[in-house]
C-alpha cells in the first residue's frame, strides 16, 4: 500500500523514520498531532500530491511514478531537491568526513591518510555534481517553467535540454563503494571502539539517501521536464 494525502503524517514517520527528513526538507516542523498529509500541507502551502509522490518514491523501491504533466509541481520539487542538496553538502557528508578524520587519527598510521584523501575525492565529486545541478540544470528548468507560465517561447540562449543530464551518478557511487570496500575488506581493524562501524553505517545511509534523491531526479523531475520541453519546444 502506498501513501495518499488522507494518511496521518505522524503515523507514517513512526513507521518509516526516513519520512522525517522529507518533512523537514519541505519546511514542515514536527509537532504534527494527528493531522493528515493534506491538512499539514495546506498549512504550509505545499502541494499534497507532490508531498505523497516524494514520500512514496523515497519510501518504496517498487513504487513507480506515472508519467506526469503536473508542471505546477516544478517550483516546489526544485526547492525540495535543493534542500536535499544542502543536507548532503552542509551536514551529512561533513559529518562522515569528520569521523573518517578521527578514524585515521585512531589508526595512527601515516599511510591510512590515503583513505581520507579518497573520501575527499568523493566529496569533491559530489560537490561538483550538485553544483552542476544547482547552477545549470535547476536554473534551466526554472527559466523553462517561467516561459511556460508567461506563455513565452524559450529564448535561443536556452539551448540546454534535459536529455544531456543524468549519467554523472555512476562514478560517484563507485567511489563510495570503494571506501566501504576498503574499510570492510582491506584495512585491518587495529583500532578499538565503534567508530569504524559508525562510519560504515553512515556510508550505507548516505548511499540509500543519494539513491532516493537520484530516483526523484530521474523518475519524477526529468520526465516532467521532458514533457514540458515537448510542449514548449516542439521539434
Amino acid at each position, binding site marked *: 500500500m502506498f501513501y495518499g494525502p488522507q494518511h496521518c503524517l505522524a503515523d507514517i514517520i513512526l513507521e518509516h523514520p526516513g519520512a522525517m527528513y522529507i518533512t523537514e526538507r519541505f519546511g514542515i516542523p514536527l509537532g504534527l498531532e494527528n493531522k493528515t498529509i493534506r491538512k499539514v500541507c495546506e498549512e504550509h502551502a505545499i502541494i499534497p500530491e507532490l508531498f505523497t509522490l516524494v514520500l512514496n518514491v523515497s519510501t518504496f*523501491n*517498487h513504487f513507480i511514478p506515472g508519467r506526469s504533466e503536473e508542471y505546477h509541481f516544478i517550483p516546489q520539487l526544485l526547492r525540495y531537491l535543493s534542500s536535499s542538496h544542502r543536507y548532503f553538502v552542509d551536514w551529512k557528508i561533513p559529518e562522515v568526513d569528520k569521523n573518517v578524520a578521527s578514524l585515521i587519527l585512531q589508526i595512527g598510521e*601515516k*599511510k*591510512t591518510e*590515503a*583513505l581520507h*584523501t*579518497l573520501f575527499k*575525492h568523493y566529496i569533491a565529486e559530489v560537490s561538483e555534481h550538485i553544483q552542476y545541478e544547482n547552477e545549470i540544470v535547476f536554473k534551466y528548468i526554472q527559466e523553462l517553467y517561467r516561459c511556460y507560465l508567461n506563455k513565452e517561447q524559450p529564448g535561443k540562449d536556452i539551448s540546454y535540454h534535459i536529455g544531456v543530464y543524468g549519467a554523472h*551518478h*555512476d*562514478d560517484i*557511487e*563507485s*567511489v563510495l*563503494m*570503494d*571506501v566501504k*570496500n*576498503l574499510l570492510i*575488506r*582491506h*584495512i585491518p581493524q587495529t583500532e578499538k571502539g565503534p567508530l569504524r562501524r559508525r562510519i560504515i553505517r553512515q556510508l550505507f545511509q548516505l548511499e540509500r539517501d543519494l*539513491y532516493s534523491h*537520484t*530516483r526523484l531526479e*530521474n523518475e519524477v523531475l526529468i520526465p516532467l521536464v521532458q514533457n514540458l520541453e515537448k510542449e514548449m519546444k516542439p521539434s
Partner: protein
Amino acid sequence: MMPTSSDIQHIIIACPAPLLRNGLQSMLLPFFGEQAKVLHAQTLAEVRHLLQQYSPQLLIIAAPIAAQEGINWTEIKFTQPQLKVLLFVRDPNAEIQNRFHGQIDINITEEALDALLHRLFPREDSHDSTTEASNLSARETEILHLMVTGKTTKKIAEMLSLSHHTVSTHRKNIINKLGIKTLAGLTVYAIMKGIVDLEDMPKK
C-alpha cells in the same frame, strides 16, 4: 545473506548471439554444476521479464543490451539485492564500467572466470577461497603499481613487453579480485599494502 555457489538457482545469460550464450553456459558449468537453471535472453525486454519472474542470482549481460534504456541498474541493486551482474563485452580493450559487479570479455580464461565467480559466490566447503581470490599475483601487483603511478595501459604494455590486451585483462582481474573499481580506490589500496610509496605518486 550472501549467496554461495550452492544457492544459485537461476542464471540469466543475455546476449543476441546464440553461439556466445552457449559458450558462456558451458564455461559456467564447472563452477555451478547442473543445479543452476540457465535462462537465455536475446533482448532487454526478455531480461526484464526473466528478472521479475525468477529473481536470479547471476545475470551476464552483453554490453549492447545493457546499454539500452529500460533497466535502472542502480535501482536493481535495491530491488534485487541477491543479483550479481557481470557485463560481457566483445572487445578485450573495452573500458571498464563501474556500475556492474564485474566485467568479462570474449577472451576470458576459465581460471579468471573461476576466480571472479569464487569472489561473488564463495563455496561453503572452501573458507579460504575468497582470501585466495583477493591475493594479487606478482604480475598483477607490478601492473597495479604502474597503474596507480599514472601509467596508461599502452605505456604499461610497452614497459613490460606485453600486448595491450594482456594488460587490459590483468587490469580487469585486479579490479575483480579486490572489488575496488576506481583508480583513486586502487591507489589507496596500493598505499595501504605498501605496493607504492606516497613519494612515488604523481603530483597533481
